[in-house]
């Protein structure tokens, strides 16, 4: 563990040579945000409020750019036809040709800037794909930022429209800022609406019943509570054998610790612990326990042949055939 910590510290130091990161508090190094390689960044507003945004990288932005390109091409074609027809039926063909060129110039250089100013950091393509341009302090961008970052795109597309310059620039910073973004102090974030799920509903009466048998003096730590919440949140997507495989890792030591029969359902035990931690209403539970006669110590259908937890984190447990 010491070696790991030293290695990590060295790594952090190496990273900070190019991209300064705030030093982690002693003892908190493992859980600092900067320890993770992720596409989320923390933005602290001038009001000192921290937001976590998922930044949009080049590939997340590409569909929006392609959509905008399509809209631009459509608009240009429309104006070309209108001016072409006007030129054909009047004696102002030259003027119409000039107007078409002006439209092309405006669309090419100001389409993004105008829309991002007007639509608060979004173009139609960005709006469809759910991404938005913000200032690096989390504030909405202003007109100059919007127009400048779009004009600077020409530089990002160098050399010769291969976009490698922009791609390299985006790869070199945590916020996926292309050169235009760096110059204008902007970032592109993903507008994700996350649903906050409440406490999971436990339909199985044995859960409440079993939770009563958990020793009253057993303290659920914060990390255990989080882990239980994560398990209960995801378990409905697992098959019954998979629930057993996943729950076994934690349930086995807990069964020993609580002195429960070793064939108690692993899934049921974790649900009961979750219930005890987040839901429990002791008096109500006791009522359920007396009304519901069946034993909560439901044995798992099949004994697990390989109870040894694998050391390789990529390992999978052998597939179970029963619950």
């Amino acid at each position, binding site marked *: 563990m010491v070696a*790991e910590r030293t*290695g*990590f510290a*060295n*790594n952090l130091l190496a*990273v900070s040579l190019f991209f300064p990161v705030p030093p982690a508090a002693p003892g908190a190094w*493992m*859980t600092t945000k900067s*320890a*993770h*390689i*992720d*596409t*989320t960044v923390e933005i602290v507003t001038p009001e000192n409020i921290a937001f976590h945004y*998922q930044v949009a*990288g*080049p*590939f*997340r932005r*590409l*569909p929006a750019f392609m959509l905008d390109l399509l809209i631009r091409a459509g608009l240009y074609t429309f104006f070309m036809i209108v001016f072409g027809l006007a030129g054909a039926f009047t004696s102002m063909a030259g003027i119409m040709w000039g107007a078409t060129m002006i439209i092309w110039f405006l669309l090419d250089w100001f389409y993004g800037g105008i829309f991002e100013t007007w639509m608060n950091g979004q173009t139609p393509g960005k709006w469809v794909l759910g991404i938005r341009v913000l200032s690096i302090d989390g504030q909405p961008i202003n007109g100059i930022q919007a127009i400048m970052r779009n004009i600077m795109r020409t530089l990002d597309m160098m*050399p*010769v429209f*291969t*976009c*490698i310059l922009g*791609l390299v620039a*985006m*790869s*070199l910073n*945590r916020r*996926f800022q292309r050169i235009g973004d760096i110059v204008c102090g902007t970032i592109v974030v993903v507008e994700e609406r996350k649903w906050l799920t409440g406490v999971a509903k436990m339909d199985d009466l044995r859960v409440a019943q079993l939770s009563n048998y958990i020793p009253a003096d057993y303290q659920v*730590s914060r*990390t*255990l509570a989080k*882990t239980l919440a*994560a*398990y209960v949140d*995801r*378990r409905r*997507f*697992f098959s019954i054998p*998979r629930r057993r*495989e*996943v729950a076994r*890792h*934690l349930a*086995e*030591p*807990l069964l020993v*610790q609580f002195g429960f029969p070793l064939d108690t359902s692993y899934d049921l035990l974790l649900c009961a612990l979750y219930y005890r931690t987040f839901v429990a209403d002791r008096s109500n539970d006791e009522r359920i326990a007396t009304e519901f006669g069946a034993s909560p110590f439901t044995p798992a259908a099949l004994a697990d*042949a390989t109870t040894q*937890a694998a050391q*390789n*984190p*990529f*390992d*999978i447990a*052998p*597939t179970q055939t029963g619950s």
Partner: protein
Amino acid sequence: MQLDSTRIAIRERNLLDTFDLALHVLREYFKPLLITFFVAVIPLLVLNDLLIGWMLDVEYRETFFYLEEQGSIWRFWWDMTCLVFIEAPLASIFMTSFLGQAVFVAEPSYREVFRDVGKMWKRVVWCQLLVRAVLPACLVFLLVERYDGFNVPVELLLLGSIATYAAFVRAIRPFINEIVLLERNPLTSRNPSAITIGKRSKDLHGPSGGDLFARWLATAMFGMLLTVCVGGTFLFCSGVFLNDWQPGPTMLRYMYPLAMWVVAGYLAVVRFLSYLDLRIRHEGWEVELRLRAEAARQAAKLI
């Protein structure tokens, strides 16, 4: 090893997010990824050049004056594209092993990476060289008469068929490197309940076949686009620094394979992250890691 404190954030992602995250991973581990990738790529570069490099030799093009230069260039382009495409997963074995360790360990050692791959060499040979047709693709060129014209049945039909087969296998079973090198399942077993590579591959890939195929198509499209961009940049640099603006034989012989390998390296990182994503979506791997970490903490408390 703290299983729930991973260096690469473990959560569900879509393909575009995975592509973006791969850039972060590349930046963070640029040097080790470069080393682990090119350790495998350099022998393959040399091998490919030995197999088909002669197609761009001046003597060949001058001796067989009836062959237009464009013809030999297209021939080389086709053969090299097929070879690199087929060999790309094999070239990423060390990189995959490194990334597997990098998820959990801050600074994985090269020694462990090479030792882990060394332990699995039989499985790698079977899965990559034979099943994924790297060896047959190389052997095809033994059937080609050197310094002779384009051999349509062998180079177009046979090599094309092998490349199509490899593409099909990789589209529906993309994560074989991860299964072999990280999960370390046995190739065969007499125990019917043991999870062999084949069984594991079926379990992992089977339920998400359609999704994996769609992802493969999108990845292939991005791969082609990136190859054009990287190749175009090399051509631009050659024009600026060497005043050679033509994508001629020299450019094609050295720069084009290099451009493809660079993209293959990037796509190997994307593939590894997609593997993590599949395990999260399909198996709830992130929950399993948290439970295992919590179990370890509980055990430590009891001690």
